[in-house]
């Protein structure tokens, strides 16, 4: 189909899903914006990514096979752009020192490896009261997540928000699998401790 214009491709009738770029903004812009904002916590960047996504999607319409919905397809595109942002933010942070310092000596005794007394996990007191819908608790959690170093937050977000495969995270962020586990551990120990400090 050498002479087929982009517009013909777009509007071609098949029994599969169609793309309607004329309605993208109306139908998907807010969704994609909120998707990106949730993962980046930065309106400016999220907004830019929505635009980038639409414009680069237009260039890729030939790749759209119609197996998924338009929204799923656009979401996959913005997801890669978000990972790119993570990668840029965290590049250079994979250096040894950021991995070794910080919490090692803070939470655990350097010789015995047990919890230091002042860092003992205490019950939050929300466990029996439907914590999944406790708005105040969730907002403390969100603030604590934003305090994590960029690389840790990227790894943590990819894992838990998108349930990404560990190998994919390692590949995208250029981490070894042992670094991955160290980061997940540190991120969680820090996050939990921040929750305790700010909640109790």
């Amino acid at each position, binding site marked *: 189909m050498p002479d087929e214009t982009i517009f013909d491709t777009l509007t071609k009738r098949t029994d599969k899903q169609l793309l309607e770029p004329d309605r993208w903004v109306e139908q998907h812009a807010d969704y994609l914006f909120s998707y990106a904002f949730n993962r980046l916590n930065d309106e400016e960047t999220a907004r830019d990514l929505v635009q980038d996504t639409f414009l680069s999607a237009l260039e890729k319409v030939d790749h759209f096979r119609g197996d998924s919905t338009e929204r799923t397809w656009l979401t996959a595109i913005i997801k890669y752009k978000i990972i790119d942002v993570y990668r840029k933010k965290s590049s250079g942070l994979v250096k040894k020192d950021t991995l070794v310092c910080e919490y090692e000596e803070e939470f655990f005794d350097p010789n015995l490896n047990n919890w230091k007394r002042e860092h003992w*996990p205490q019950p939050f007191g929300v466990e029996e009261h439907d914590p999944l819908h406790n708005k105040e608790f969730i907002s403390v959690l969100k603030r604590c997540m934003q305090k994590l170093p960029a690389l840790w937050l990227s790894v943590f977000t990819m894992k838990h928000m998108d349930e990404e495969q560990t190998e994919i995270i390692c590949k995208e962020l250029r981490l070894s699998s042992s670094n991955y586990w160290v980061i997940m551990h540190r991120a969680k120990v820090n996050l939990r401790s921040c929750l305790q400090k700010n909640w109790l």
Partner: protein
Amino acid sequence: MKNELKTDLEKIAYNCRKATFLIEKKQEEELTAREKMELKLHLAGCYICRVYEQQSMLINDLVKNLFNGDKPTGIKLDDDYKAQLQKKITEKIKKN
């Protein structure tokens, strides 16, 4: 020296750093038989790490729930920006 741990069992019993590491790992993949045993032994005697484990799982649930299905957060693009964006898209379609 008072602080020296002699037996393997003692080392496992004290090692909250390792136990919390295994607690994280366990939530994503199956531990080796040895790791399972170590964690079980440790948790049997360590109330603090049992609290940690419960909270660690709660945090995972919360984070998943928070973004699951990307429920609308109420955050929206403003209309001017959308109009501009639509214009750019239309132009680009025409160009091709």
